[in-house]
């Protein structure tokens, strides 16, 4: 069983630089990644269906900023906490929780029942997003490497090291080893 | 359009049952379905009243049918169901397994606890022998209209829920016993303390449901007075009224005046409010929305 179940948090040493750096590169990078993912997995948008136009606040509680996801425009923007635009639905939890859910290691309802994940606003939109992403079997580590093919080998090593260091699931594991 | 009295879902003692049906003999209703619907454990306490009630009602010119239980699980409940036909009255099926005991070709009635949502199901039951069908309360009026056409073409009578706390669910678990921290098998028949069900409110004090042994009802009383005109137009032939412990004969008399226009829905509602100041009303199913709304407004927002 993986250690990362939503109760792992990002080391403080990594948080400090994030506090002082500007947020626009984060928005650019994440939006580029989102575009790639949606292009490679068109079924995500078809599952989200009529909730594509909803705005989702992804409140990753151990990051110094909040994310706002706009599926229809394939846009992810980072905002200083408190300055984020209003969203139709808000999902709050730790980065580890989000990543574990995305990578099929952890069940969203389980995190929700245990209080590790909180939801506000449009429940239908949240379910549509959750189910669409769960079906897509994403691997963020692999997507990042594909986005930057020149850097793939060093990235792979860096991601693996980062995973070991933080306990965060950055790649989709072989699930037969997880359960 | 005439009136059918639903089987009494509550646990009343023998004397109360006797008085109730004696009084009902004088009410302007066309037919009465009686028998135990909710819990077979109650039956020994009042079953001796059934033959007398049948006789009284028939003598008063009413058609009488006997209901099956809503949920049949135990061996003695199956035996009970098999014996119903022996009474020589139409059996109202409220659990489909009762059909197993009704030979093909023998006419029967179907109660509101059988799931009839569409043409195929209605036609199948008619072919099997159904002669009178009360549709489930949650059925939207558009569906009622379509099914009424078929019922008319097939020459069978179609009823809808007209008045009374809505039968929303049936369970293996007894909520009355649970509220008294007892197991169902040692319930000590505590549901007799609540002749119209035991009210269940939300934590904010919103009136919501009512439990009656293994049955869950709405706390609000359905009142389809506003919809009688439309229901009559689309070919619904009877309105079903559910017994309640107080003022039932009077409300039967009022509902009987509705179809001919001898009483307006507002006057009927006014009488209900005067006679039962605490009675919350609902008619949402008749308007195709949440059951818990009254005249187009949610009971709570």
């Amino acid at each position: 069983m993986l250690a990362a179940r939503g109760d792992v948090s990002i080391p403080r040493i990594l948080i400090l630089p994030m506090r002082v750096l500007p947020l626009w590169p984060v928005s650019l990078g994440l939006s580029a990644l989102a575009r790639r993912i949606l292009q490679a997995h068109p079924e995500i948008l078809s599952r989200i269906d009529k909730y594509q136009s909803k705005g989702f606040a992804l409140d990753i509680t151990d990051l110094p900023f909040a994310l706002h996801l706009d599926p229809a425009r394939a846009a992810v923007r980072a905002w200083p906490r408190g300055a984020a635009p209003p969203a139709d639905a808000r999902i709050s939890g730790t980065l580890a929780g989000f990543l574990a859910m995305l990578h099929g290691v952890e069940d969203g309802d389980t995190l929700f029942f245990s209080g590790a994940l909180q939801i506000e606003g449009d429940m239908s939109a949240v379910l549509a997003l959750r189910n669409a992403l769960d079906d897509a079997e994403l691997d963020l580590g692999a997507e990042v490497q594909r986005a930057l093919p020149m850097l793939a080998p060093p990235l792979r090593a860096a991601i693996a090291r980062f995973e070991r260091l933080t306990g965060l699931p950055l790649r989709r594991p072989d699930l037969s080893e997880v359960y | 359009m005439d009136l059918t009295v639903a089987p009494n879902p509550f646990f009343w003692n023998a004397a109360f049952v006797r008085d109730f049906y004696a009084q009902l003999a004088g009410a302007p209703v066309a037919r009465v379905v009686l028998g135990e619907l909710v819990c077979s454990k109650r039956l020994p306490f009042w079953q001796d009243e059934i033959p007398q009630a049948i006789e009284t009602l028939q003598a008063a010119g009413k058609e009488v049918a006997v209901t099956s239980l809503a949920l049949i699980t135990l061996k003695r409940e199956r035996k009970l169901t098999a014996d119903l036909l022996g009474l020589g009255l139409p059996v109202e099926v409220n659990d489909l397994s009762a059909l197993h005991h009704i030979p093909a070709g023998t006419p029967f009635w179907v109660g509101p606890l059988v799931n009839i949502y569409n043409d195929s199901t209605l036609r199948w039951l008619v072919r099997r022998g159904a002669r009178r069908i009360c549709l489930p309360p949650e059925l939207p009026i558009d569906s009622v209209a379509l099914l009424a056409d078929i019922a008319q073409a097939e020459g069978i009578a179609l009823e809808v829920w007209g008045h009374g706390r809505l039968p929303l669910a049936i369970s293996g678990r007894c909520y009355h016993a649970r509220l008294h921290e007892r197991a169902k098998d040692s319930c000590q028949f505590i549901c007799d303390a609540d002749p119209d069900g035991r009210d269940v409110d939300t934590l904010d004090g919103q009136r919501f449901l009512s439990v009656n042994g293994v049955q869950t009802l709405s706390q609000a009383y359905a009142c389809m007075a506003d919809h009688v005109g439309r229901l009559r137009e689309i070919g619904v032939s009877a309105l079903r009224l559910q017994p309640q412990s107080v003022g039932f004969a009077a409300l039967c008399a009022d509902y009987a005046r509705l179809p001919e226009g001898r009483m307006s829905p507002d006057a009927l509602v006014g009488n209900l409010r005067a006679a039962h100041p605490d009675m919350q009303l609902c008619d949402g199913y008749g308007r195709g929305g949440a059951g818990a709304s009254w005249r187009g407004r949610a009971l709570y927002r």
Partner: protein
Amino acid sequence: MELVCPAGTPAALRAAVDSGAHSVYCGFADATNARNFPGLNFSRAELAEGVGYAHAQGAKVLVAINTFPTAGDEGLWHCAVADAACAGADAVILADLGLLAHAAEHHPDLRRHLSVQAAAANPDAINFYAEAFGVRRVVLPRVLSVEEIAAINREIAVETEVFVFGGLCVMAEGRCSLSSYATGRSPNMNGVCSPPEFVDYANEGGQNVARLGGFVIHRTPNGASAPYPTLCKGCFTSADKTGHVFEDAVSLDASTLVPRLAKAGVTALKIEGRQRSRAYVGQIVRAFRAVTDALEAGREPPALALARLSEGQSATTGAYAKTWR
């Protein structure tokens, strides 16, 4: 024993098959099935692909078409049965009398299972469905004790399937209108219970309040999680009592009863949870497969530690123990 596992998405189907499911059940993305939630269920192409994936690994696919067709719109349900047959489904799971009659007439070779939504709770009901519509297997409602299940199996000729894990209806399934009373949408008509579009979470005076259709279902202190406002799991007041009048926020875990269920003549064990993720499906299926494998080999089944995956993070054996009632 056959392990029948839930799949709300193609990914969950693959997770179930990879984790050892003997059968997977799923439905189309519309009102024809009883888990009609946003983002869930299968298109026609996805079902055909899923059937291919399952069959390649020796698993079966059962298609749930277990809501009650709307008058005047029965074509949608008839289509679903025809498309399931086309996709190579091993059986359809049906509840409605009219739809059963249609399937028996137009698709006589397609195996028919009786859905739990038909609430066939005694041998007479089961024999009625078997004789009238050629039903081969019945999913038993969750109102029966193990002893009653054994007694039923002695009187019927068709297979029985029982729920062993997951969300628990306390009412007889397919016979509950609580949801439509509060919201206008019900499991029978729309394939949804306590639908998400009627859920409202609010923060009031230091408490999380969960409402459904305007009715307060839960109040929990801030910081604690507010459970999903499923009507029958709510906290209510009746006279001097406040609490979970119908059922606590628990879910079913009958893993310890599997040997007794086998002895009672049960053919298949069903896991609830088409609305859950592939992570959930994978973990539960793997755990239960260990139980059925042990049983086949004559070994003592392992104790499972699955409580954290359950709603309320606690479990009950439900109606299988007579005292539950």
